[in-house]
């Protein structure tokens, strides 16, 4: 248990003021670990094969010995997941421009390999795509639809919330759309602006019947997508678009599954739980480095006693249903929770998690649950860097929470 409390209620307030006049911006790649150098990414075959929770989907053996991996980025891993699925004849992949790869190249070459009848372009018609996919799935098909950007999912919101999520329930179990998976790129890209950088996962959180999954890396993307497609429930699979090319791992080439609805602890710790999913994982990793070894400009704002704090970093992975047990278990140990997400704060996923955690861990909490999120504004183009919670804002919240 950490002994310091209330060293400062706003440790970075003065820092922010002072730095507003700094002339030289940091280099674009930053001074610190980023996605390219992240220790979270499994860049060797040995580490890739030891991915926690990984279950091989082939029958021969459950052994990892002798398995091959290939270096892939996230979009290649998505494509790699779609190939074994398409070996099932009833599986169909469709969406806007996906026949020639889609805007992020996730479906490249699939039309040539599996036929244009099974991998095809649709009109620009999101509500129609969702409805059409639901119809197919009710017939027992594996329908894998792409909504080109998560920002465009709103016309399909009715179909997903009212039809896909409810069909099993309202038909008394006679019909289901378990074969339905909606893939969609999500989160910010740095310059996406209002309609290409949103994170709409929270809007689906109340739609019992749906699952919402967000991977952080190529291995995660492949394993979770394979699980999402084969899960007998409709799944919205949101792929952090900035990671498509920047996140690179050794990815097992065999067919494997990672569990839905389960969080993963990336860095174990005892003093504070840092919970996030998707892109901000890497900002959180950077923040942990800043905390342990603050650069000169930040050092005065990170009390020395806090620098040895053990922060537990958790990737939630599934937003619906979310792994409340794992989060509550962690918070019960650490007594502190900081939640990071890109969507705005009001009624975001963090609000739901904070409410549940305060209920489950009320007497264990040593500090209020802190949310580091986008602002409650649109994601405006020129302000995007300010909108997205970055490593410094996360560090600020960690220090504030640790020293509460």
């Amino acid at each position: 248990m950490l002994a310091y409390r209330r060293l400062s209620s706003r440790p970075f307030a003065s820092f922010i003021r002072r730095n507003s006049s700094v002339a030289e911006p940091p280099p674009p790649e930053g001074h610190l670990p980023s996605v390219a150098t992240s220790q979270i990414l499994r860049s060797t075959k040995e580490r890739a094969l030891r991915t926690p929770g990984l279950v091989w989907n082939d029958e021969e053996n459950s052994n990892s010995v002798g398995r091959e991996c290939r270096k892939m980025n996230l979009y290649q891993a998505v494509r790699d997941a779609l190939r074994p699925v398409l070996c099932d004849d009833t599986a169909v992949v469709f969406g806007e421009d996906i026949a020639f790869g889609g805007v992020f190249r996730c479906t490249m070459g699939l039309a040539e390999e599996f036929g244009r009848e099974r991998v095809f372009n649709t009109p620009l018609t999101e509500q129609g795509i969702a409805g059409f996919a639901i119809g197919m799935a009710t017939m027992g098909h594996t329908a894998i639809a792409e909504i080109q950007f998560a920002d465009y999912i709103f016309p399909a919101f009715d179909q997903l919330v009212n039809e896909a999520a409810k069909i099993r329930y309202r038909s008394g179990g006679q019909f289901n759309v378990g074969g339905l998976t909606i893939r969609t790129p999500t989160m910010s890209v740095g310059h996406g602006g209002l309609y290409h950088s949103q994170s709409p996962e929270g809007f689906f959180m109340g739609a019992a019947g749906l699952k919402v999954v967000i991977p952080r890396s190529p291995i995660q993307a492949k394993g979770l997508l394979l699980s999402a497609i084969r899960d007998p429930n409709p799944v919205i699979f949101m792929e952090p678009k900035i990671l498509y090319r920047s996140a690179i791992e050794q990815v097992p080439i065999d067919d494997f599954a990672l569990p839905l609805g389960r969080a993963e602890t990336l860095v174990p710790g005892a003093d504070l739980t840092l919970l996030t999913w998707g892109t901000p994982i890497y900002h959180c990793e950077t923040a942990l480095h800043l905390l342990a070894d603050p650069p000169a400009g930040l050092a005065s704002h990170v009390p020395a006693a806090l620098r040895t704090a053990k922060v537990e970093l958790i990737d939630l992975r599934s937003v619906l249903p979310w792994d409340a047990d794992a989060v509550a278990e962690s918070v019960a140990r650490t007594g502190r929770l900081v939640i990071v997400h890109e969507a705005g704060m009001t009624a975001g996923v963090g609000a739901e998690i904070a409410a549940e955690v305060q209920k489950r861990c009320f007497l264990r909490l040593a500090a209020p649950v802190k949310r580091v999120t986008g602002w409650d504004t649109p994601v405006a183009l020129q302000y995007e860097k300010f909108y997205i919670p970055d490593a410094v804002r996360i560090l600020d919240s960690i220090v504030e929470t640790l020293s509460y």
Partner: protein
Amino acid sequence: MASLAPLRVSRRLPQLARSIQTSADTTQLPEKPSDLSQPFTVKLHEDSFRAYQCDVPDLDVTVTKDQLLGWYRQMQTMRRMEMAADALYKAKLIRGFCHLAIGQEAVSVGLEAAITPDDRVITAYRCHPFAVLRGGTIKGVIGELLGRQAGMSHGKGGSMHIFTPSFFGGNGIVGAQVPVGAGIAFAQKYLEKETATFALYGDGASNQGQVFEAYNMAKLWDLPVVFVCENNKYGMGTSAERSSSNTEYFTRGDKIPGLQVNGMDIIAAQHAVAYARRWTVEQKKGPLLLEFVTYRYGGHSMSDPGTTYRTREEVQRMRSTQDPIRGLQRYIEEWGLASEQELKQLDKDAKAEVDAAVEEAKASPEPLIKDLWTDIYYKGTAPPYMRGREREEVHYY
């Protein structure tokens, strides 16, 4: 506005000059056959159909005595069922939403008469007759309305949520079933089934954007889907003319041909559906629009008396002059297929069947508390728990 008046008149003139007629009893028997147990040919009124980018169906239709008597019995039973639902609702035994199809029986019975069990049907909220005709039971429908275990969705759905293996449900969201229907048709085509999907919606839903999205995909990919617009002239409380810039719904598919049909004459209705099925399944010409011009006698839902946006006289006139059941009754009597007495017996049988089903449904228990939590996710893949109102009510899977 004054200057617009002449324009309006002129725009409507062509429609007045030639419009569909919706009487239920204008089909003629040109020559009376000697043996009525054999199939015989009748002639539909020349204004039973209007076509858009396709030919009108042949007006000569071959029917049999058994067919006509069967349809009569089915329409009468469906009306009795809806009347029973009406009474149960007014007795406060049915709660929630309830939309009745009294007056529109020729569409559901005519549709079912011309398709096969392997075809697929999906419709909107006015779904009770389709559910029964597609393999369900009256007890199952009434049980669902009452919210009982005997209901076809085990009492968890209610009026708009009734399904059978070939009937993809009533759907409560206006227009949402139409692209779903296109997807079902795609699966049929993909699986190389010689079947079609009939995606139904009303004149109100026809203005939903996703209906046009579905048209486009269906034509683009030549899907075996028949878009069936049940034009009962009012989308909730707004007449077609006040809601739609183009009230000729059969022409709204752009490149999809369409057929407007007298939806009050069961023979015309059945004949049109057979034509549509041939078009999509046998001739593989892609999608088709069918517009049934019909009429609902009751309000949009149980909370709508149905008289604030139309006159009582209008409803009365439709009931007395264009009722599909009375129309068929006249054919049967005039053509000597059955006596008034025999038809009365069919009426009684229908009523008895419905009454018995209602009693059975009423006797069925309410859903078990535990079923509140089932069928949200596939068994075994659900989250660890679902919240109830308080700690004791949290359900753990």
